[in-house]
């Protein structure tokens, strides 16, 4: 396994224009479970196969986008050590008290060089996936919509993605798994803290702090096609797909929530090991890198962000 004390993207907090429309989208179409609401009106959801209390938080606001992305780390000692390492690297960190997000322990919050707010936490209450730990069944009955198993990763847009890469590799011990280069310039980067092809990704962009998508895992290509059916059935705003990415090899479809935040559901990347060398894509082959079948770039996919 990876050497990182960071184990996974554990939650994402998204801003939405209309909370109830967003809940219907994430609960009834993606198939996340609505867990609870807090006194600030935020809604907590999770994928059926996630063990912790929540992985998606929706907050009503006057503009959509991402409030913050949280990574779970392995234990309170790791959290304290990484906080010190972040400070030593030059980050300003802030401790958010336990319980500020319901059922979540203390969080260490900092900003990436691209302006995105990221936080680390070591504890979140256990809810379980409903199958138990002794002689469990393989899946849960009665899940709605696309039946997303879990939150997987985010793609974020901003200027200094070199700074993001350095911070994540040097301080949080992520691995760079793939990158897109235009000569010497890195225009996109994919990083992993685990065995996955990516846990977070960045694209270089003229404006900081932008959100491209939050991605959720499905089991099979057949389920990706079924997600496409659900998108059509409910007249959800489709972006692209179903198709295959060259980068990460994911089989994928992209669509938008009712506030214009992009979602992905996907299946099937590859297994990353920390002794692997990063995969490199060159700008002249960018079409197939992003959309392997079409081999053509799509302006909207690349430039439409919240």
């Amino acid at each position, binding site marked *: 396994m990876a050497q990182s004390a960071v184990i996974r993207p554990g939650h994402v907090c998204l801003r939405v*224009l209309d909370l109830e429309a967003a809940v219907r989208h994430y609960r009834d179409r993606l198939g996340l479970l609505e867990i609870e609401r807090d006194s600030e009106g935020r809604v907590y959801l999770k994928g059926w196969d996630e063990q912790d209390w929540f992985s998606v938080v929706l907050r009503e606001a006057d503009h959509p*986008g991402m409030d913050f992305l949280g990574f779970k780390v392995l234990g309170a000692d790791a959290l304290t050590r990484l906080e010190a390492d972040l400070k030593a690297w030059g980050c300003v960190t802030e401790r958010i008290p336990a319980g500020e997000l319901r059922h979540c322990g203390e969080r260490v919050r900092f900003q990436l060089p691209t302006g995105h707010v990221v936080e680390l936490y070591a504890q979140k209450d256990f809810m379980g996936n409903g199958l138990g730990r002794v002689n469990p069944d393989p899946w849960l009955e009665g899940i709605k919509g696309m039946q997303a198993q879990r939150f997987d990763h985010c793609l974020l847009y901003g200027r200094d993605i070199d700074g993001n890469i350095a911070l994540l590799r040097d301080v949080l011990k992520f691995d760079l798994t793939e990158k897109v280069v235009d000569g010497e310039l890195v225009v996109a980067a994919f990083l992993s803290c685990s065995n996955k092809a990516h846990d977070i990704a960045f694209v270089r962009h003229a404006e900081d702090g932008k959100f491209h998508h939050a991605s959720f895992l499905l089991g099979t290509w057949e389920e990706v096609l079924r997600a496409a059916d659900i998108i059509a059935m409910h007249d959800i705003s489709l972006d692209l797909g179903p198709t295959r990415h060259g980068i990460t090899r994911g089989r994928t479809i992209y669509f938008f929530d009712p506030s214009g935040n992009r979602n992905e559901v996907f299946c099937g990347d590859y297994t990353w090991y920390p002794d692997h060398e990063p995969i490199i894509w060159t700008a002249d082959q960018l079409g197939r890198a992003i959309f392997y079948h079409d081999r053509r770039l799509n302006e*909207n996919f690349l430039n439409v962000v*919240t």
Partner: protein
Amino acid sequence: MRGVDANAPSTGDLDAGSRLRGFHEIRILDAEQRIACTPGENLLRAMERLNLHLIPVGCRGGGCGVCRIQVRRGDYATRQMSRVHVSAADEAAGIALACCLMPQGDLEIEVLGSATSNPSAVLKPLQG
């Protein structure tokens, strides 16, 4: 309902049948084609239904700002749009996102938004 010169004459290019069916006619400055919009339908959806490419299409949810337009004349309603792309002052001045705008009569509009106004570096090498 929001009015920008509510007394302006309609542009009058839709056929009588469309008028009887209650269509609103949307004229885009500097464009030949018109968009016939059914009551309650948002402008961007009407355009996409007609397979026209007069206004850039983004998220269709009021979030990305790609379909930003300026209404020059006519009445319309809007649903909530990202304040990053349409400020309160913009809104008062007749700026809106086409995906969130429901015409309530004939409109004359100008396209402001573009998917390439703030491109990612991924596209830049290919655009020169």
